[in-house]
């Protein structure tokens, strides 16, 4: 594939990356609207500003690889190939949702794409990822499990136990720390005695790099390098993906803990704007292309909403299904 020198990627691939980021952005903007309209309820955590991270990383995975993520995972699900329809129906709590409506925003699951959820306990998904990777390794399958978690999760004991286990057993786990500098209202300086998170990985002998999480190409390149090393049998890798959350932590957050100015400053590095500009500068994309792209994405979102609206509620009589497997119901 031809790589544009200014761009660092093949222009076609560049447009693909942009489309992926846009899909996530527009989908979530709609979610925020739908939250106000009370179509979506409970907790809603959007990824706006952080799209380059999941986009770059997930680009590097194969179908047989696996993904474990957090409650801020709409983007990850879409990028992994779960349809916007199914994700939106899930947000609505409808029976056609990717988790049959049982999970909602924080618990997107999809077996077909090896998307192991959607975990809302901070750090709670990390041991699962280690186990998924262990199963692959025990079977002799050469796959990677990408595990996403926030800077906040790094303080949890489970992170440490898990990375040690993965390193000790040389498991194919790609630890993707989405460092958006805050855990709810707690800035990383108030949560970590050592804020250079890459140093944590060193304590386990795990190779790690900090990556500019606002640069989708940088993320993709770093992830690709890591995935290759993992698949070559090198054991786990840790990527610290430096990014920023443009919106509130959840829909309940009054955002008292950070300056508007700080947010504005980061917004100048909006990964979508940045990359669009790069594509424009490299003349890889025209104004018309962009408009078409936006229209395409808007259509996808509209279809998703229509699908969710049309989908039905699970009958109340089915409340206690899926507590035990059906053959095993008791």
């Amino acid at each position, binding site marked *: 594939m031809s790589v544009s020198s200014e761009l660092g990627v093949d222009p076609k691939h560049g447009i693909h990356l942009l489309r992926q980021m846009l899909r996530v952005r527009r989908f979530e903007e709609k979610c925020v609207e739908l939250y106000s309209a009370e179509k979506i*309820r*409970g*907790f809603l955590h959007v990824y706006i500003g952080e799209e380059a991270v999941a986009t770059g990383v997930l680009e590097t995975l194969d179908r047989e690889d696996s993904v474990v993520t957090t409650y801020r995972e709409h983007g990850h699900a879409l990028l992994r190939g779960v349809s916007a329809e199914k994700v939106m129906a899930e947000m609505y*709590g*409808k029976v056609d949702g990717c988790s049959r*409506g*049982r*999970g*909602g925003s*924080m*618990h997107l699951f999809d077996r077909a794409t090896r998307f192991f959820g959607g*975990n*809302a*306990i*901070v*750090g*709670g998904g990390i041991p699962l990822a280690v186990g998924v990777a262990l199963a692959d390794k025990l079977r002799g399958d050469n796959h990677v499990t990408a595990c996403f978690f926030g800077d*906040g*999760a790094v*303080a*949890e*004991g*489970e992170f440490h136990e898990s990375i040690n286990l993965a390193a000790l057993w040389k498991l194919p786990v790609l630890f993707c720390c989405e460092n958006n500098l805050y*855990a*709810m*209202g*707690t*800035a990383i300086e*108030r*949560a*970590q005695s050592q804020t250079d998170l890459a140093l944590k990985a060193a304590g386990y002998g795990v190779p790690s790099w900090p990556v500019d999480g606002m640069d989708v190409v940088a993320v993709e390149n770093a992830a690709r390098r890591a995935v290759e090393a993992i698949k070559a049998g090198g054991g786990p890798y840790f990527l610290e993906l430096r990014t920023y959350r443009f919106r509130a932590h959840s829909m309940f*957050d*009054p955002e*008292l*803990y950070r300056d508007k100015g700080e947010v504005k400053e980061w917004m100048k590095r909006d990964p979508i704007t940045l990359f669009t500009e790069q594509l424009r500068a490299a003349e890889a994309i025209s104004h018309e292309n962009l408009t078409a792209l936006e229209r395409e994405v808007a259509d996808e979102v509209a279809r998703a909403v229509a699908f969710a609206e049309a989908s039905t*509620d*699970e009958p*109340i009589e089915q*409340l*206690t299904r899926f*507590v035990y497997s059906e053959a095993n119901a008791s």
Partner: protein
Amino acid sequence: MKTTYREAMRAAIRDAMQRDDRVFVMGEDVGRYGGCYAVTMGLLKEFGPERIRDTPLSESAFVGAGIGAALNGMRPIVEVMTVNFSLLALDQIMNNAATLLHMSGGQFNVPIVIRMTTGAGRQVAAQHSHSLEGWYAHIPGLRIVTPATLEDARGMLWTALVDPDPVLIFENGTLYNTSGELADDAGAVDIDYAQVRREGDAVSLITYGGALPATLRAAEELAADGIDAEVVDLRTLRPLDEQTFLASARKTHHVVVVDEGWRSGGISGEISARIAENALYDLDAPVARVCGAEVPMPYPRHLEQAAIPNTSRIVTAARELVGVHA
């Protein structure tokens, strides 16, 4: 004075901080964020970061640190954001807070207060909707309290802090916005006794915490039918104030236990068992239970509402009980 449950809790914390230097608050986002449920909003400014301490996401360590600080003379109020995350600190709670006094032969008591939000009803799905206060009540060495009224939100904390042993305060998330009148001089209340919130002689509705409002509404509905229900608010789940609910059972001869927690192996079974042990011959019918459905909480509203005790399920249970044997 008009206030809310949230404000009453906050007033209780402020009051305790002012009265006793040894009191401090520690937990995730209690400071700069203002508290996940805004209970501690404004306290950082008032008391500073030494006494309103934001912690990292390290439930086991900061709960354990609270226990250590209590051992060493402080009176920590540790906020675990929600009961769901307290599972990460359960080893500290059961193996340290609850046992140190005994293991040390009476030397080291643990005067810690651990507050947490509990319960369902806000569509936050399976991992964020547990009602585990009844389950925690299984553990000797702990005191478990469940303020359900403005008075208790305002008054239980200080009593818990004065208590020489670990007290866990469970605040049902659906109660924070409850508003009403509270006496201007409202202060400490006991944490020993259940309370009859409504007198009646036809059926006893025994409940606590987040299920109290629905139970009181059920009593009103029953009254409209001519069934005079007594509502007992347990208030403290460990140790249980057996006398109060036994007296009610003996009076009404019919008991419905209402508990948002899962039914099997929950506190509802314990209450039923104690009534059977102590007042079986006073009953005109078996003790009935209206509990949470035995399911990890689903996200959609209609399923969630079907999974937790609501007024109509309580009314139905009470009617059946009284009807059958009336």
